[in-house]
């Protein structure tokens, strides 16, 4: 508990939390304080009540704000995907009944840390480090892991490493050599690899998505995770999947049958049909797995150009639908905001309120010790309609004119 509180210190003000709980208890109950402790949260969720998405989505909910924060498309899913779901809606029978250590690479999709803690394990963090080359555009591939530093994080009690490729938020697409380093360590230390590959189809020219489960010795120790929401631009369907060897998947099935038990039937049927359509035409440029990254690469390049034109320093992503920019040159006046938050948190809140443009602070993807290293970075989502990106461009250009 103490460890959790120390690590989450900057995200959660734990003394404040306890005080709030205490005062509400006094109001609600006439029984003794000791008995009222029963209504406190369980230990597994201690300190996990704050959530970056809830906080920033609320801010960006104002309709006048251009939301490039949370990662959801505002573009339409492909027509045949929608049609499959409509067809399925007409078929009535489908309306019926579907303590160890974990290494997390920083920055990380924010849920990994609370999920590891909720499971009672201890996260061990290792940051990606950047070595930009002069004269060359800053790219997600410039962010790498130091192999020796990575090995130092492994020990006989290491249960798993979480790999995310293409990476959120940087858009890094791990190379064969980088994956080999990770694979070698997993085998050497008999560790699981949880491979989050939700952006697997979103890789841009010159890059190839590689699945670590295909590496020698890795199939038997890897769980590969995918997402319908990211694959078909239908985040609201909330369907995902885990693929792996039977001896690992059976344990996930045990958890599933004791938690939600099944997923929504009509949505799974529609997803299956949509997959059949695209699997049959993998080499066709019209296959969504080809057409979407092609469409997004254009948007990516537009964002890169836009950010550069106003003096922001973007990290060009090799994959995914996010782009990171270093915002220090915008020199925003954040003096009236709370001091204890990282710079990028304050910056994004200020930008949302004052410039009507929202994004997500990159330090939300960091543990408490590495936050400061990443606090000048902000993440923009570009899987948006052209009109949304037009609006963002207007704001950024106007802002830049104001400064000069």
């Amino acid at each position: 508990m103490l460890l959790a509180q120390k690590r989450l210190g900057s995200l959660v003000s734990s003394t404040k939390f306890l005080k709030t709980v205490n005062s509400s208890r006094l109001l609600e109950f006439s029984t003794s304080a000791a008995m009222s402790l029963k209504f406190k949260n369980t230990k597994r969720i201690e300190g996990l009540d704050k959530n970056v998405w809830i906080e920033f989505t609320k801010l960006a909910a104002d309709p006048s704000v251009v939301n490039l924060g949370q990662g959801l498309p505002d573009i339409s899913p492909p027509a045949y995907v929608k049609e499959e779901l409509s067809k399925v809606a007409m078929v009535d029978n489908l309306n019926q009944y579907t303590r160890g250590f974990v290494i997390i690479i920083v920055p990380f999709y924010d849920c990994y840390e609370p999920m590891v803690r909720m499971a009672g394990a201890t996260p061990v963090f290792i940051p990606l480090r950047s070595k930009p080359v002069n004269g060359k555009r800053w790219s997600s591939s410039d962010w790498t892991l130091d192999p020796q530093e990575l090995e130092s994080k492994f020990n006989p009690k290491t249960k798993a490493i979480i790999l995310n490729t293409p990476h959120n938020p940087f858009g890094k697409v791990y190379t064969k050599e980088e994956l080999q380093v990770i694979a070698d360590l997993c085998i050497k230390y008999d560790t699981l690899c949880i491979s989050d590959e939700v952006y697997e189809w979103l890789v841009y020219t010159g890059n190839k998505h590689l699945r670590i489960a295909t590496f020698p010795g890795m199939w038997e120790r890897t769980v590969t995770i995918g997402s319908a929401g990211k694959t078909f631009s239908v985040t609201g369907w909330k369907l995902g999947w885990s693929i792996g060897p039977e001896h690992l998947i059976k344990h996930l099935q045990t958890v599933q049958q004791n938690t939600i038990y099944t997923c929504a039937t009509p949505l799974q049927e529609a997803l299956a049909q949509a997959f059949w359509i695209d699997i049959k035409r993998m080499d066709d440029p019209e296959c969504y797995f080809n057409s979407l990254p092609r469409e997004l690469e254009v948007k990516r390049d537009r964002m890169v150009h836009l950010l550069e034109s106003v003096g922001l320093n973007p990290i060009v992503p090799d994959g995914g639908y996010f782009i990171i920019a270093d915002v220090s040159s915008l020199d925003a006046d954040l003096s009236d905001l709370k001091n204890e938050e990282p710079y990028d948190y304050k910056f994004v809140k200020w930008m949302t309120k004052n410039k009507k443009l929202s994004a997500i602070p990159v330090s939300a993807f960091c543990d408490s010790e590495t936050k400061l290293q990443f606090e000048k970075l902000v993440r923009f989502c570009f899987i948006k309609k052209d009109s949304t990106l037009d609006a963002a461009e207007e704001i950024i250009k106007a802002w830049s004119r104001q400064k000069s």
Partner: protein
Amino acid sequence: MFRNAAAISLHLVGLLQGKKAGASVTRHLHQTFTMAKQMQARRLKGLDYNPWVEYARLATEYDAVNLGQGFPDFAPPDFALEAFQHAVSGDLMLNQYTKAFGYPPLTKILASFFGKLLGHELDPLTNVLVTVGAYGALFTAFQALVDEGDEVIIIEPFFDCYEPMTLMAGGRPVFVSLKPSPTRDGELNSSSNWRLDPDELASKFTPHTKALVLNTPNNPLGKVFSQTELELVASLCQQHNVVCISDEVYQWLVFDGCQHISIASLPGMWERTLTIGSAGKTFSATGWKVGWVLGPDHLMKHLRTVHQNSIYHCPTQTQAAVAESFEKEQLCFGQPSSYFVQLPRAMQRSRDYMARSLQSVGLMPVLPQGSYFLITDISGFKSKMPDLPGAANEPYDRRFVKWMIKNKPVSSEGLRPLHPLLFCKG
């Protein structure tokens, strides 16, 4: 895991308990075996068996008439199907994420609809959480409130998941049984005859009791707890400062003029009750997997924390369909055209038909006051056919069900540990 290697495993366990890994052992291990480490978490111990999975498989294999698992084999009502069609062909943004704690039109209608029924004004943001089915609601509640060593009182017979969910949360299930009073000759047994002994119930509460799980109407018995029975449970919960997790998924399926009462509406109970509901059971659309929890903010905030760190959002379109379905029902609530009036009426006829059929072959059904399940006493058969094939220590009812599936193709679920047999109608 990979291969059985008991000796190596034992040695490895020693290694994993903090002793340094000798290089030669590690090399040997990785040459011959991989993943000898136990991968699964200890919280899964004993939870891998699931009766639904087993019996559903059997029923399919023998092409049995499946009266086992609880889902309708008829369509949801037209207005619900239409609502789903609207949801999937309407606003394109319904294909994307909605609010984490519930699609706003759904939380709004749930707050309005149930606020009236519970006699307590509900705020859609703080008193309502949408979950993946009532199953997901139960999971979220257990994870939020049950800690290592906490005791959870479970009333037998119980919907099977309450026990593994308690165990997975590190809690200790404490059982208390509903018991039937003897019936007069010729009189059909009723679920109302099955009662808790007040002294026995009181004796189950200890300083470690965190929660009591109430299920009314009850699955599998179909018992609808009366005002007096709920007052007993309520007074004990208040006396011992215990949370009541009230699973009310069958709240609309009550017969013979019985009234479903939500324990949260009793004095002193709102602040300590989580009321769980299900769209699947409400609208005969179990595949939509939309459920909800209603409760006071000081409890709901902990469920929100679990929710945002587990599934985070529920699918948008199914929530939209449920919202529209509730909106339609709210317009005709209490009237003869209401689905909540028509469905129990139809189910009551099915219940009576099934009861007569069972009696005609010498089985003794317990007439349920609610839900769409009916249990039957098979002790008459046990005396005539005491030896049915099955594993050693396998209870009689499980053997009976398997025998019945194979020989009389009607499937059902075994009811452990009681002799009565479970049927589902629908």
